[in-house]
């Protein structure tokens, strides 16, 4: 299989994630979409790694996963804290820091 397919799938997932990021207002959904985008990137990296037969890409993918896990842990923590404070959670309402 040529690398084009892999990249196409990766781009598709990335776009789905980005579209969700822009349209969804619930923080949980935004986090899910971010996850999609990260994994789209992972897919592309691993595909390139296979193509070149090198191991660095795999390592990178693992690093990204670890970062993603950490980010989700913090993100979910924030979401839960927000939920406790103000029941209805909407990313558009969280703009106290605007200029």
């Amino acid at each position, binding site marked *: 299989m040529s690398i084009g397919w892999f990249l196409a799938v990766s781009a598709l997932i990335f776009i789905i994630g980005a579209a969700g990021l*822009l*349209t969804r*207002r619930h923080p949980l959904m935004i986090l899910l979409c971010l996850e999609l985008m990260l994994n789209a990137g992972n897919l592309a990296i691993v595909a390139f790694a296979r193509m070149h037969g090198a191991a660095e890409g795999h390592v990178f993918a693992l690093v990204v996963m670890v970062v993603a896990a950490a980010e989700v842990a913090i993100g979910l923590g924030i979401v839960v804290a927000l939920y406790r404070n103000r029941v209805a959670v909407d*990313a558009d309402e*969280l*703009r106290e820091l605007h200029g």
Partner: protein
Amino acid sequence: MSPTFTAWTVLALPLAGTILLALGGRGWRGVGAGIVGTATIALAFVFSVLTLIGLLDRDAEGGRQIASSLWTYASSGGVEVRMEILVDPLSVIMLLVVTGVSTLIHLYSLAYMRGDEGYPRFFAYLNFFVFSMLLLVLAGNFFLLIAGWAFVGAASYMLISYWYRRTTATAAGIKAFVINVVGDVGLVLGAILLLRHTGTVDFLETFAAAEDTFAGSGSGSEGSLTVALLLLMIGAFAKSAQLPLHTWLADAMEGPTPVSSLIHAATMVTAGVYLIARLNPLMELAPTAQVVGAVIGLLTLLVAGTIGLTQTDLKRVIAYSTMSQIGYMIMAVSAGAYVAGMFHLTTHAFFKAMLFMAAGSLIAAMAGEQSLDRMRGFRKAMPFTYGAFVIGGLALAGVPPFSGFFSKDEILAAMAGEGGWMWILVIGGYLGAFLTAIYTWRMIFRAFWGPPCPEAQELEDGRLYHAPDHRNPATGELEDTHVGFPGPEHHIAERALPMRIAMGGLAVLASVGGLLGIPKVLTPMEDFLLDPVFAERGLHHPSDTIIVVGMVVGTLIAVAGIYVAYVIWGRPAQEGRESTAISSGWQERFPRLHRLFVNKWWFDELIHATIVAPARWLGRFFHDTFDRLVVGAGLVGGTTGTVRGASALVRRMQSGYLRGYSAVLLAGLAAVLVYFLAQS
């Protein structure tokens, strides 16, 4: 021990005392701080005597002027500034006077300040003052002289404002400091001008170079020397309270009485006299500066004498008397009668310090009241203080055989011997002596003679008068007795042993101080000073006739002055005649003159109108225009306005919408992607 080693020790002791007292702070209990302060100064006096002995052991021919340097402080442009002291008869005499009188005044303060909350602070300041003064007199170059000079001014400021919650005291301290700084500026400029021509700051090197540098005709540097000396003399005039920089001294009486005694009578105010005497090789080369100094001294002694006639504040009368006596000294050392000037400085330190101590005793008996109008008839209540006042008064008026007689007459005789224009100085000097006798004895008659006032009566009955509430003697404002104000207790010198010892010691010195210089008979001070310090310079010895005639005239004038004072203020009230009839009669007959004297010749008003008010107006004008418009509105307002405006623009972008930010981010990413795609 070499004289230089002992001299360095003299300098180090008060400094050590200051540090010890200051670091101890509130940890000092009871009289501990006072004992430590007094002990260090007493030890410094012992070392001063050792220095004198060490110097006397040396060869009289050129061996008695020793410079000693610890290290080089700075070296640049060919000028070496060393940590250097100069030990010679002049500085040793000053050492002895300063440490000797200081020891007694520390002893006096030990009891006098006993009830004050800031007791350790007082002694820390006092020791710091002594250190500064010793640094000033021991300095071997202009650099250290200026340092000591400025330290002395700072110490004086701290001590005048010692009762820092009294607004009058802090105002007086600021006034003294500002006027002294005017003098400091003159001193620094003068020293720099000399440095420019001689290329050295060292005293001995300057003197050695002076003849070649300045005396050469046609080089134009003779004028520079005169200017430099006049600048240095501005420093001397400010420190020694000479016209027109004298107004701070009377206000400085706001400080505690021991401070007035030590700083504003015996030591600091004589620094100007010392400076001119120290610079005598230069003064001899600049006759103009000599004339200016002598005339200023003469004017000061006359003006201060007339003011002293009319003041009613006991301490201020003595303060004006100090100004007047320093006028004599400045006149003497400027005109070239160096030995006589230094002699008068020494005797004056004795009797004036004692007069202030006795005044402190009176003020304590009056519970802080200083007005002569309220004092009356203390003769029986305080015989010891009365005795001190009489001895001081006789010495000040110049009645033989008290010390002031010899020193004052030596000044006037030296000038009469020179003749010429100096006769003006002689006649003015005798007029001043007449005034001195009158105002001194006016004070004594008014405070001690006549029927006792209530306070004196209390004391006679064995009780010490306590005012119902504490008031500021200058303004009558109510005060408490906490820290920053005078303490609650009064200590009369009669009753406290340390104060009796201090006053007694000075009384003896004031009585026999004349032994330091009886013309033709006994002149130890002159013999000691002449060779290395003044050499052949200065006025010549007057003839025997002038000396004898001068002494007779001086005695007559002093006695006449005392008699006049007795007639006006001392005679008991008789039937149909008030005791103050004569003085009030004179006041009515010459109202203008009286107003002139009471208002101190309007010098304060003059300085206010010519300097303070224009400066204040200028300040206000620039505050309203330049500062408010250019600095405030333009520079500061412009900068903040620009930043604020620019940030208002940028701030709009910070919407706070998370999705907005991510949209921008993605759009940017897409743009980069498109760019690279278009490139490939």
